[in-house]
């Protein structure tokens, strides 16, 4: 039970002649919500794409659920991919399908469940993300930003993954929608015993969700710890990212600290 869900070792990535990652090490134990934080262009999304297996790092090893990401036959690799769900930054719903078909798609691909069971599962996933069954008939183009995120989350959860990767889940949502979405993820995390990797720029999202914070700066993970212990870290990026924001917020609120 103690094998980390994700284990990155010595990841190195290069775009043309620009080094993005140089020796990224990260181990995520089961059940954690890890927020991956870093400046713009620090390669957070690239690291996530490595974990999903969409891109290959130049060097280093990636292990998911204790197995090397690209090990085994095609069927094993595909089975491994079904154990995680991904919420892409802009939802990435299939625009030719309606919401219901989007959620049913991964279920149908399995070829196991009957149509009636798929319909029941789609209703369940919709209710999990607090959407009405009537929303299933809507096309992605007809959805608001928050609804797109919910529908995409429902699709990511369709196969009940053990690991959920969220790329900027609350970006582009207004504050109360964003709070509701955070609450939703927290509930799902508790219900489904998920391990969650979260890429975010939003400190409220981070503070509300993350059990641990991984800081990606200087081309590697400079810290992977709880939020309290991250806050006292003497690192220029941490100072800028956390304290700059809080200082501004406090100044705006007119409180003295």
């Amino acid at each position: 039970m103690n094998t980390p869900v994700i284990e990155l070792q010595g990841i190195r990535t290069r775009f043309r002649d620009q080094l993005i990652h140089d020796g990224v090490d990260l181990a995520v134990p089961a059940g954690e919500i890890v927020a991956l934080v870093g400046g713009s262009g620090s390669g957070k999304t690239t690291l996530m794409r490595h974990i999903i297996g969409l891109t290959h790092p130049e060097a280093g090893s990636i292990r998911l659920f204790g197995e090397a990401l690209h090990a085994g036959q095609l069927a094993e690799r595909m089975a491994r991919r079904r154990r995680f769900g991904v919420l892409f930054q802009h939802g990435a719903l299939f625009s030719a399908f309606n919401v219901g078909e989007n959620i049913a798609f991964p279920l149908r691909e399995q070829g196991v469940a009957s149509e009636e069971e798929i319909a029941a599962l789609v209703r369940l996933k919709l209710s999990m993300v607090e959407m009405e069954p009537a929303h299933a008939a809507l096309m992605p183009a007809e959805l608001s930003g928050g609804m797109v995120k919910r529908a995409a989350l429902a699709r990511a959860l369709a196969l009940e993954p053990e690991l959920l990767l969220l790329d900027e889940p609350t970006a582009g949502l207004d504050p109360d929608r964003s709070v509701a979405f955070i609450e939703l993820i927290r509930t799902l995390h508790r219900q489904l015993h998920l391990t969650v990797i979260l890429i975010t720029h939003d400190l409220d999202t981070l503070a509300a969700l993350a059990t641990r914070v991984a800081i990606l700066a200087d081309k590697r993970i400079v810290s992977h710890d709880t939020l309290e212990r991250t806050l006292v870290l003497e690192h220029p990026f941490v100072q800028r990212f956390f304290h700059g924001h809080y200082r501004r917020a406090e100044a705006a609120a007119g409180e003295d600290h």
Partner: protein
Amino acid sequence: MRLELAGDWSLNSLGRDIDQIRRTLAQASPSTEWNLSAVARLDSFGAILIWRAWGECWPANVSLQPEHRRIIERAAAIPAGALPKTAAFSPRAAVASLGDALLGFVDHALHFVALLGQLFLDCIHLLRHPRQFPLAEVSASVYKVGVKAMPVAAMVGFLIGVVLSYLSSLQLKTFGADIFIINILGLGIIRELGPVLVSVLVAGRSGSAMTAQLGVMRVTEEIDALAALGVSRSQRLVLPKVFALMLAMPLLVLWTSAVALLGGALSAWVELGIAPSFFLETLPRVVPIANLYIGLLKGMAFGLLIALVACHFGLRVQPNTESLSASTTASVVSAITIVILADAAFAIATRTVGVVA
């Protein structure tokens, strides 16, 4: 009876022997004793399977882990009622879709006329403010739709010329009317085949590209951004394409017709022994120059139509992949159809011009 479930009850792991599991579960009766304590992992699919096997109510005799009880409770609480379905096809729907198609056609026609009118207004505006003429865009488009299409246009033209000449000369030989190959090729290629061939090629090559480009720009809201910056979309996006095609098409027609005639002349030389020098000498005598003007004029008109149709469909793309592909297809098919209709109109309008009686 007593049923004991164990192992992974999830969609990912039940796949292999799902049929056998369904059969076993179907044998259960209300009095069956259930033991689920050995289940390692249970997901919603497994829970639905089990819940249905129970006849959608908790059996009298069941033992399971509290955590799994919660998952089954969640599956039991799935909101009832079917997902909304699209209506089945009925006679009423048939009438409605016919009406839709008709109204859609009217809508297209109106939009097309509006686009043409906007283009006219833009031209007047540019005549008043010649400095705003999008010269760089026109030049780039001419290069893209004209210069880059030259190799493929030449290849197609050459082969068509060779084939046309070869097949015609086989027939002409039987009549001993070899010399008329020059009339046939000259009239056929310069007046008819050249413009139509180039139009089909350009509609497929550049028309589709224009529609897709404008379509993606619509999906990514680039066109809205342009409007918000106070730049006229028709002036910056539509007009350069129309001008470029109206300029490039006659040139492409000239190029393709020339290469097709070269192919035809070579074939006539091989097949009928007509020397290329004689071919070239006779051509202006049997094919009046008016035919060349008609061909070039057609090229210009077809260019206008192809660009307008491409822009028309491009600007109507909805933000989804289906609409993009449908619009691109519609653009190419409509452009070719409209070009051939226009060609028929040209044939009628110019029936007394440039034909030696």
